[in-house]
């Protein structure tokens, strides 16, 4: 009787310890999940912020200023001469006045 009870006791202890360990691992994972959730939220909010900042710096007026600052001329496209052999030999150079 005694050996049987002892075996049961030991086994119960082992099972309990294993269960406790598994529970602890589960809690750790859940804790990590909570951290990830918060990180995800933070990242989402940061992305929103960055998107707005990017678009605030790319308004048509700012692009126009940037073009003017670099002294680029906006000129219309010119149809290529069908007889021209290469693109580089396009008939008109309108890149600079």
């Amino acid at each position: 009787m005694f050996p049987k009870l002892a075996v049961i006791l030991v086994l119960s202890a082992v099972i309990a310890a294993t269960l406790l360990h598994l529970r602890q691992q589960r809690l750790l994972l859940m804790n990590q999940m909570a951290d990830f959730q918060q990180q995800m939220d933070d990242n989402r909010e940061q992305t929103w912020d960055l998107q707005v900042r990017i678009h605030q710096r790319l308004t048509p007026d700012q692009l126009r200023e940037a073009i003017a600052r670099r002294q680029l001329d906006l000129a219309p496209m010119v149809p290529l001469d069908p007889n021209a052999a290469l693109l580089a030999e396009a008939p008109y150079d309108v890149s600079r006045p």
Partner: protein
Amino acid sequence: MLADLKPAQPTADARRVLKVGRFMVIGISVLFAVLLGRIVQLQLAPDPRLETRVDSQHSSATLSARRGALVDRHGRMLAVSRMAYRLFLDPKMIGDRNTFSERVGYELGYDPVDVEMIMSQKPGNRYISIDQRLSEDKLARFRELKLPGVYVDPYVVRDYPYGQLAGQLIGFVGREGKGLDGLERELDPVLSGAPGRIVYARDAGGRALWIEADNYQPQHDGRPLRLSIDAMIQSIAERELAGAVEQYQAKAGQMIVMNPWTGEILAMANYPAFDPNDFSRAKPEDWRNRAVTDVFEPGSIFKPFIWSMATQLQAANPSEMIDTTTSGVWRSSKGRSLRDARGHGRIDWDHVLIESSNIGMAIVGQRLGAEKLHNIVRGFGFGQMTGSGLPGEISGVVHPLPKWTHYSVTSIPMGQELSVTPLQITRAFCAIAADGMLVHPTIYATDHRPEGQRVLTANIAAHTREVLGRAVSEGTGRKAQSDLYSLFGKTGTAQLPNFVSGGYYQDRYVSSFICGGPLEAPQLVVGCFIHEPDPSVGHYGGTVAAPAASRVIEQSLVYLGAPTSAAPEQLVQAAIHLDD
């Protein structure tokens, strides 16, 4: 010998050990059973006090849902949601109250007197807001400092990164995140998201331990929408419109740029403009998108529609000579006296449109008769909603046929006795540009050509464009000529009707110009409408509206990469001109 093999009797010590062991095993088993019972009791019927205590270790948080962004056709964000931070104080958590306001003021850049005053106004309050929206610098400073008793409260706000660009079209949202005007209001059900909810188990220090799986509801973001607007073309239109309104000291103006083949609205500008980021500072009447909510009597820009249909119905032939009188004054068969700006004498039907002759149009209007004229007007979509889906759009005014008088057959061909919205008339002009197909205008970007309704044959539409091209090169629209592209267009100078005493004001006008280009292969249609310019500066559509519309179409075509047919020496000049 056999007796010697009997098992030895345990000694007294061994028996005691065995006994103690049995007791321990039984005791531990009982202890396990009690523990198991306690676990079952805690699970099935816990003590309420315990429940309260466990609940206090949980806290719920809202997961912010993002309102769908409104983006232009190239994905540039016209309206977008982001997080903002409200700075607040909890006086109970403040350490040294005497130096607190000075410290907050000094470190975060607020007036200590203001901080002290706000705190004293709300005694006992544990949430005293100091700043509704922290700037980026102050937020960074706040995070560095970690002042006790000072906290931030995040919340979602709507931003309009391009400021006043397309303000009236986009509209704005209120503090609760609901769309209050413009597309923000119209598309609220699509754009709105549903916030989520999350419950955390927290430790004694308030740190999140884990998420309660049963109490997790993910948020659902709103759907972003891609508009047909092109921010660059919108910017060009707004700049040129503002320039024209200010130069001619007008009261207001609208400018519309459309793709005639798809009906896409590429720009819809209003002046005066307003910034949706700060809508409360603007006058409520400036929030209105007058391109669809307001009507005006179109005047001469209406002539191309009657002219083209009269040609198609063979009420007049292009080569036919029409006597518009040398005096510029003509009396209709019903005795109505009509005037042209100057006497044109006998001119062909093409020149009736090129010179914008009221008399020539009235003569052919009489030939058409009321019923045909009414059908033409309705056929081009006047007196009906355009189907754009834009908020606040109205149908304009076209009187039912029984209400027409004998004056109507001479008034309608020159754009009187009816009212149209700027969008309606720009859309109708698109039919001339798109080989006679009338499409529904749309504010959503589309990748295919919608099925339109044929109102003109392709030949008549092409001929109308050619004649309108001559109106720009040799007629009333000469100031709209472009060095880069051949344009076709029509000017309009309509007197404002006087609803009090009847008739028309002699010094109040709507100056307008509608054009399309390039003439050889139309890509864009631009409508420019300037309301009540100062007549002492200028009031003719060809002077006030035509140059602005021409610059918009020219710059937009260059931006879109439309090939030019201009000679190289003109291109050099044009490049300099565009930079100016």
